């Protein structure tokens, strides 16, 4: 017993002060991508299909940065020869809409709080069911990490539960494989309304590294109404936590 107490004392209290602090990342951390048009000399073809993902595309509205498509890979920044595409250390990038992840410079329309009724229902207690559907397990590993003593998501009233019957929403990870599509849709049907859908990671948003494979649906199928999109490959646990707290109206605007 004394040994238990000794180890407990040695370990100390390790819970992150987040959201009051704790969002400090090492210098090389690849957070939200940003595009600086001033650095683009228009001579390279990185955004014209030579990117390992569709993070940067050249369309009728000019060059667009889609944070949802980013694989947060050094190759993406390198393919933009002028150095106009960089990764910031900003971990905040969850958005209520798919379009909110697309812009000219990488600014994300950060998630706004749920409507009053939903917020009253879920704002202080949200139960979620995780569905992995054609993932690599990286996103799930970060969802598991949200339950450890450091991130301790339960202190905000957010918990993962064992059955969709007990859940207020689904957290979908993975590019949605042919084999999992039916199970995903049935799990959604088994979740009582009103219910939320949260798409976590590049795969769930647009297929991620597996985009275009005949074995996947390139992300959450259109049948499911997504309420929150959280980019990353995989997203840092604080990226997920930040987005969820914004959705629940637990973070002040602009923080």
């Amino acid at each position: 017993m004394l040994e238990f107490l000794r180890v407990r004392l040695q370990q100390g209290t390790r819970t992150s002060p987040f959201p009051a602090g704790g969002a400090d990342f090492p210098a090389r951390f690849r957070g939200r991508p940003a595009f600086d048009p001033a650095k683009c000399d228009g001579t390279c073809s990185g955004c014209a299909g030579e990117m390992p993902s569709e993070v940067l595309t050249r369309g009728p509205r000019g060059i667009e940065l889609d944070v949802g498509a980013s694989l947060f890979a050094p190759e993406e920044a390198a393919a933009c020869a002028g150095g106009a595409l960089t990764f910031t250390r900003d971990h905040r990038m969850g958005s209520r809409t798919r379009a909110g992840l697309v812009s000219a410079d990488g600014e994300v329309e950060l998630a706004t709080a749920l409507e009053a009724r939903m917020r009253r229902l879920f704002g202080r207690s949200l139960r979620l069911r995780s569905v992995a559907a054609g993932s690599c397990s990286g996103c799930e590993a970060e969802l598991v990490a949200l339950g450890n003593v450091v991130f301790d998501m339960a202190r905000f009233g957010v918990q993962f539960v064992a059955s969709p019957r007990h859940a207020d929403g689904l957290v979908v990870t993975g590019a949605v494989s042919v084999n999992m599509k039916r199970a995903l849709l049935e799990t959604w049907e088994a979740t009582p309304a009103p219910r939320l859908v949260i798409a976590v990671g590049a795969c769930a948003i647009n297929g991620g590294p597996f985009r275009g494979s005949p074995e996947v649906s390139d992300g959450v199928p259109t049948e499911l109404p997504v309420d929150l999109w959280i980019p990353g490959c995989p997203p840092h646990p604080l990226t997920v936590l930040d987005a969820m707290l914004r959705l629940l109206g637990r973070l002040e605007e602009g923080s």
Partner: protein
Amino acid sequence: MPHEPVESFGATVSDAVAAGWRLISLFGMPEARAVRLVAILADDVHGALGATSTSVRERYPALTPTCSPASVFEREVAEQTGVIPDGHPALKPLRRHAPDHAPTNGTPVAAGDREAYPFFRVEGEDVHEVGVGPVHAGIIEPGHFRFQCYGEEVLALEIMLGYQHRGVERLLETADRDRAVLIAESIAGDSVIGHAEAYCGVLEALARSRKTPRAQTMRGIALELERLANHIGDLGAMSGDVAFQPGAATLGRLRGECLNLLMTLSGNRYGRGLVRPGGASFDITPEMQTEMRERIARLKDELEPALALLFDAASVQARFEGVGVVPQDRVFELGLVGPVARGCEITRDVRHDHPWGVFRFAHIPVATAWAGDVLARALVRRLEIQRSLEFLTEQLGALPRGEIRVPCGALRPGELAVAMTEGWRGEIVHVAISDEQGRVRRHKVTDPSLRNWPALAEAMRGNQISDFPLCNKSFNLSYAGHDL
């Protein structure tokens, strides 16, 4: 690549396995009007590799009846190429099962027929069936488990996988190199370094690119950090499964410390972006070297008492001991790898048997335990944690100078390359075959999970169904790695 008639091919492989070689990969490669079957064998005693191949049309005599480790590979070949191994004792789909996929043998299945998959069933009074998944109770990957139970006792367990199938091999064969390495890093998200290392290994071999000693050491450091993170995390999860909360809380956090070390190095908690063809894409600066050494020393100080607490607790020992036993002879019969094999007192470790990179110079002793149960697998992981920490302390103290990355150019045409690495789950094998234009014609990936899943199903026989989570976590196999 040696080529022989189908009649002698089976005998060559079976005789080699009987003589002590291990079948580490067996796959099909489409040819004009035929399929080339390629077998890769390893001689662990002499650190040698061998290959042979044959050409087959619609069917060929199965290897499995005379060479049992071929079983899972032949199921994979049948599914990927449509070639039927005649006489295979359990030719079931591996990943593409009904009703979401047409069966390999062509028999039609009704769209909603969930029972189209031929599960093994035990009949009898009081025998009941428990089906779990693909959507589980925890935050885990999808898979379906069918238990045949008599009361609490599990008589048989069949595991149906494939839900994570994303078509990785095809993508690796068609994507350009900048994207392919990202796909390789996403084969199994907890084995980013292990798979990237093997993927880069085959490309470097085909391109005759020689990494600098500094790059080799850095990649070795990343691989051991990955091993540490997963072993520590799994011991924490096993601790939670037997309701030993001090272990779950402390080890769960300390796993994160290892991931944060990888993030300092690569900008990502799982080490994505670091291992690249020709070396590594980020250097370890002198300041980072000092910082990482200090953090590893602190990790060691905090880890030792937490591990001692877990392994010294009588309640934990009582729950770990005698559960999920894998008999030693099954290691050979199923071709098991990694901590599962080493928990049956088999010294099988690629870092020792077929050393590559930094492991040719820095030898990590192979950790084994003897009982083949949950406790043995936990003990192997504990030993490996200690040895990886020693390796990291040593390597971070004496990093070789030099470039971190050299060019990795065009692939030599018409060659076959094999790369093996010891990921934290065990042996990862990548095989690449280049065509006459120097493009990748076939890229074969074998994750250790493919070898070890059948052992988990067998280890549950005669155990209580309530011990499944604990037994499962002691293996902690990858669904994505199996399903590719």
